[in-house]
């Protein structure tokens, strides 16, 4: 975000307060005291929730005052670039798709699709190669880690293998 206009991401503090309330609600539904320790299982979650709510409000004040939020620098990323929404969504789909595909399609196929999606989101145009690399990587890891004793599920569960 450059100096064009100060962004006011109030939603950040909404999320923090929301998390705090979830914690607070859970904490308050548990006994707050116990026989000998004095504080029971509910005390600490209640405390954490309350602090998060307060921190969320403080964050809102900071945002109101125009606190700058600069993206962190990291390798291969330029924090000053505008967000590439398409690339972000592709990578997000790549990370989320295995929730649906891993169990039924097996690791190698799920890996193939996710690999190609991430590579695409980073601007790779060789879809065929990426699919192939992903499949080989998935197969190799499946055999290696299966031998090491991991439960990676079937190789191709749809075919009953």
């Amino acid at each position, binding site marked *: 975000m450059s100096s064009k206009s100060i962004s006011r991401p109030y939603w950040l503090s909404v999320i923090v307060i929301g998390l705090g309330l979830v914690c607070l609600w859970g904490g308050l539904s548990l006994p707050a005291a116990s026989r000998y*320790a004095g504080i029971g299982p509910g005390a600490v979650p209640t405390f954490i929730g309350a602090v998060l709510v307060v921190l969320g409000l403080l964050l809102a004040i900071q945002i109101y005052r125009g*606190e700058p939020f600069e*993206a962190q620098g990291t*390798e*291969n990323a330029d924090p000053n670039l505008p967000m*590439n929404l398409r690339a972000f969504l592709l990578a997000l789909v790549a*990370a989320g798709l295995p929730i649906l595909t891993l169990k039924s399609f097996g690791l190698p196929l799920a890996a193939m699709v996710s*690999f190609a999606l991430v590579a695409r989101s980073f601007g790779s145009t060789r879809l065929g190669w990426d699919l192939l690399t992903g499949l080989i990587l998935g197969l190799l890891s499946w055999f290696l880690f299966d031998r090491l004793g991991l439960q990676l599920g079937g190789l191709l569960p749809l075919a009953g293998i």
Partner: protein
Amino acid sequence: MNSFEYLLHGFGVALEPMNLLWALIGSALGTMIGVLPGIGPALTIALLLPVTVSIAPTAAFIMFAGVLYGAMYGGSTTSILINTPGEAGSMMTALEGNRMARSGRGAAALATAAIGSFVAGTLATLTLTFVAPLVAELAFIFKPADYFALTVLAFCSVAVVMGTSRIRGFISLFIGLGLGVVGIDKLTGQPRLTYGVAELLDGIELTVVLVSLFAIGEILFVASRYSQARETPLKVSGKWMTREDFSRSWKPWLRGTVIGFPMGALPGGGSEIPTMLSYTLERKLSPKPEDFGHGAIEGVAGPEAANNAAAAGILVPLLTLGLPTSATAAVLLAAFQNYGLQPGPFLFTSNPDLVWGLIASLYIGNVMLLVLNLPLVGLWVKLLSIPKPQLYAGILIFALIGIWGVSGSEVDLIVMLIIGIAGYVMRVYDFPIAPVLIGLILGPMAEYQLRTALASAQGNPMTLVETPISITFLAIAALIFLAPALLRRLRANA
């Protein structure tokens, strides 16, 4: 037997051919991930955790130790040759090391980093050898109130020191603490914040959070702001090390070790702060302070020594008290627990082969790493030519295996996606990541020790400030909390 005899015995274990092979695999893997972006030692060991099912504990820990040390070596290579620190602990190295490489003294920078890492690693391991058994006895003196005070100190320091804003630091910390509460309450057996999801009863796994925040969050962030600008590594040029380089390096190596080791042993210390302190100190002490910013060799030698010593330092509280002080240590603790082992004072007596084999392997690993990183540095630089799209795609696959392979649970994959998005948002809005992990790791311990202390004292809160140890820790914590300006000035100076 005394420490020395145990150590000799340990060498017997570590020098078995298979164990040497594991040390080599670990060292090479560690160097590799140190060079590559996006994966650190904690994440790597987390992804390797599943092998604990099929590998003997001694072999596994020898390999993990190689990864831990190797990452520190490898991180310096990228800092010097392409000015992008592979690890947080190599940030300071990039400042001077890259300048040195630009002015044709890359070889000297690499040499002082590698030899400094070796010297510090060896000295720190030596200290570990003789200090650890003594610290182990502390476990019988340390009471729950002391542990509680120590964790409070860690929380304050990590939230205040990391990142740019105290509020955001504490938000990160408390999110971590909140995640740590999820699951069955240890003291009463009641489920907390699980909201009816059975898979959450055992809590949110550290490895899931680690993989999500670091791997998934990083992939999303880099994808959304991917900079195609290719950084070609600088050529390794110049003489390895002249007599002058050496005479300017050896004192910073020693000072870096002295700073790094104890800081690594303290919770929340990590490797960022000791390297920063070492850098600041070397600039103050240098006879040629004007060199700093233009490639001062002291500015590479000191911080590199400090980060390796810190890596060894984390092993002291981990092995002796079962107290993890960083994310890497917490993952190692998880590995111990996978084997049904509980690090602590009794580990030294019940599993001498494991503990002393591990310590001996640290000496051996250091020698291996020196060889891997000086003559063979060109090999590792080649890794940087892996095209980035495929590199990040590969990281995602390993992240998936690391999560799916352990639990086989879709709930974990959903948690991964949610926390991954959170990791993305935190990067965009500059919330520090480390406090989340520290909160998750030490939060449950803080609560447990607090409630145990109170239960043991039948609810009398004065028990928390009864021992000199707890008073000291709590006082330092208060100081850190109340005087952030001081620390910020330190940062600004660095």
